[in-house]
C-alpha cells in the first residue's frame, strides 16, 4: 500500500489539526525525516508505527516545537511550528515514556508549577480536579520520586491536560506500564477521546490499531504507509509493518 496523503487529507482547511508538508529534519548528513507529508483532521487519533530510528520521535519533537525542521512546513492547530511556536505551545500537550515531572516536588507542586507556566486560571481548583481524575488526590502531597511507574504516568497525563490542549502527543505512553496502569491510561484516554486530537507513537501494533482512527508507518524518515483506520486490512497492514520494520507484530 503506497503512501496516499489524500486518504488523510480532508483538505488543508480549518478542520485540519495537523498539517505536514515536505517535512525534513537532518542531523549532519543523516535525514531523520525525509519529505514527510500528511494531514490529520481534528478529533482524529493517529498512531505512528516504525522501527527504532525511523524518525517517529523526531517527528513529534518537530510538531511540539522542541526541534526545528530543516526543510518543509508543519502546522498544528493552525499554528506554524516555527513562526508561531510560543502560541502553539499553549495548544498542545505531550505525554512521553519519560514523566517530565520534578521528582523532588510533590504531585500537587508539580501541577501547580506547570499551571503557572501555562498561565492556567484558577490553578488550584484545576489541579485538584485533575488529581481526582487521575486518582492521585490521596497522594497529592507526596514527592513524585516515591511514585510507581503507573502513578507517574497518570500524573504525567494530568500535567499534559492542565491547560486544556487541543492536540495531545503521546510518545510510547504505555511503555513500562503494568496491566492495571494500562487500564487506567486506557480509561483516561477514552474519557477525553472526543475532545482531543491525538498523535501517538507506538511499537505495539495491536494497541495502536485498537485506539487509532488514522495510521502512519515511518521507516528511515519516510512515510511508508498512511491511511484511515477503516480502510486498513489488519493482515495486510501487519505484513507491511513487518516488512518495513523487520520485526513481528507486538
Amino acid at each position, binding site marked *: 500500500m503506497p503512501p496516499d496523503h489524500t486518504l488523510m487529507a480532508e483538505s488543508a482547511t480549518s478542520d485540519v489539526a495537523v498539517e505536514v508538508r515536505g517535512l525534513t529534519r537532518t542531523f549532519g548528513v543523516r535525514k531523520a525525516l525525509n519529505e514527510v507529508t500528511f494531514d490529520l483532521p481534528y478529533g482524529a487519533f493517529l498512531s505512528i508505527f516504525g522501527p527504532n530510528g525511523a524518525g517517529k520521535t523526531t517527528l513529534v519533537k518537530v510538531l511540539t*516545537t522542541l526541534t526545528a525542521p530543516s526543510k518543509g512546513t508543519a502546522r498544528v492547530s493552525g499554528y506554524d511550528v516555527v513562526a508561531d511556536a510560543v502560541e502553539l*505551545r499553549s495548544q498542545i500537550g505531550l505525554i512521553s515514556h*519519560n514523566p*517530565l515531572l520534578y521528582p*523532588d516536588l510533590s504531585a500537587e507542586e508539580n501541577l501547580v508549577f*506547570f499551571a503557572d507556566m501555562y*498561565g492556567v486560571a484558577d490553578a488550584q481548583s484545576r489541579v485538584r480536579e485533575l488529581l481526582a481524575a487521575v486518582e492521585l488526590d490521596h497522594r497529592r502531597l507526596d514527592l513524585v520520586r516515591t511514585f510507581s511507574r503507573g502513578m507517574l504516568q497518570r500524573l504525567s497525563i494530568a500535567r499534559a491536560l492542565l491547560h486544556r490542549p487541543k492536540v495531545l502527543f503521546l510518545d510510547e505512553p504505555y511503555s513500562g506500564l503494568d496491566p492495571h496502569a494500562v487500564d487506567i491510561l486506557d480509561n483516561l484516554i477514552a474519557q477525553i477521546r472526543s475532545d482531543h486530537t491525538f498523535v501517538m507513537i507506538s511499537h505495539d501494533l495491536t494497541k495502536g490499531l485498537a485506539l487509532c482512527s488514522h495510521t502512519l508507518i515511518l521507516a528511515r524518515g519516510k512515510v511508508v504507509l498512511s491511511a484511515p483506520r477503516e480502510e486498513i486490512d489488519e493482515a495486510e497492514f501487519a505484513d507491511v509493518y513487518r516488512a518495513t520494520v523487520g520485526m513481528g507484530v507486538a
Partner: protein
Amino acid sequence: MAGDSAGLSMRQFKAILRKDIVMELRTKEMITSMGIYSLLTMVIYQVALSQSGTAFDPRNIAAGLLWLAFVFTSMLGLNRSLVHEKDQGCLEALLLSPVDRPVIFFAKATGNLVFLLIVQVLTIPVFAFLFLQQGSYAGEWWMIPLALLAGAVGIAGVGTLLATMSVNTKGKDFVLAVLFVPLMYPLLLAAVSATSAAILGGDGSVQQFWTGMSMMAAFDAIMLLASFALYEFIVGA
C-alpha cells in the same frame, strides 16, 4: 495584551524561581556542596600559606584567594542547577510550555545568584577569621558586600548561560570550566581589584574600588544583555 503577556512572564519567572528554591531547600545539593567546597578551599589556602613567614602579609593576596574560591565553587554548583532540569526530561517539559526563553534564563540566573550569595555569606566569616586579623581591614564595611554582589551577578548570569550550553554535552564539567574561566577573566580582574582596595585601603583605594565596581557593572550589563539575546538560540540548539 502586552500587560497580559508581561503578567504571564512574571508568573512564570516566579514559578521557576520558587520551584528551584523549594527543590534546593529540600535536597540541599547545591548549597551543601558549594558551601563545603568553599570552606575547604579557605582551609587549604591557609595551610598553603602557613609557612610563608611573618614578612609576608596574606592580606595582599586575600582578595584573589577569595575570588578564586568563589569561581571554583560556582563551577561546581552551576552545572547542578541545570542537571536536575535534565532529570526525567524536565527541561523538555519546561521548553514545551509557552514561556519566552529569556524568562527561563532570568529565573535560573536569579536562583543561582541567591545560592551563590548564601555561599558567600557562609564563607566570608571564615575568610575574615583566617586572613584578616583584627583591625587589618582598612575599607568601609559595605565595600566588600557590594563587590561580592556585583561579582556574583556576573558569575550567576554568565554561569547560567554556559551551564545551559554545556548541560547536553558529555563532559559538561570540563566544557563549563573551559568556557567559564576565559569569559569571567575581566570580571575576576575587576572583582579582585575592588576587593583588594577594600581590604588594603591606602591612597587611591576608594577610586580603585569604584573603578573595579564600574568595570563589574559594565561586565554584568553586557553579559546579561548578551545572555538575554542568545538564550533562545542556545536552549533550542
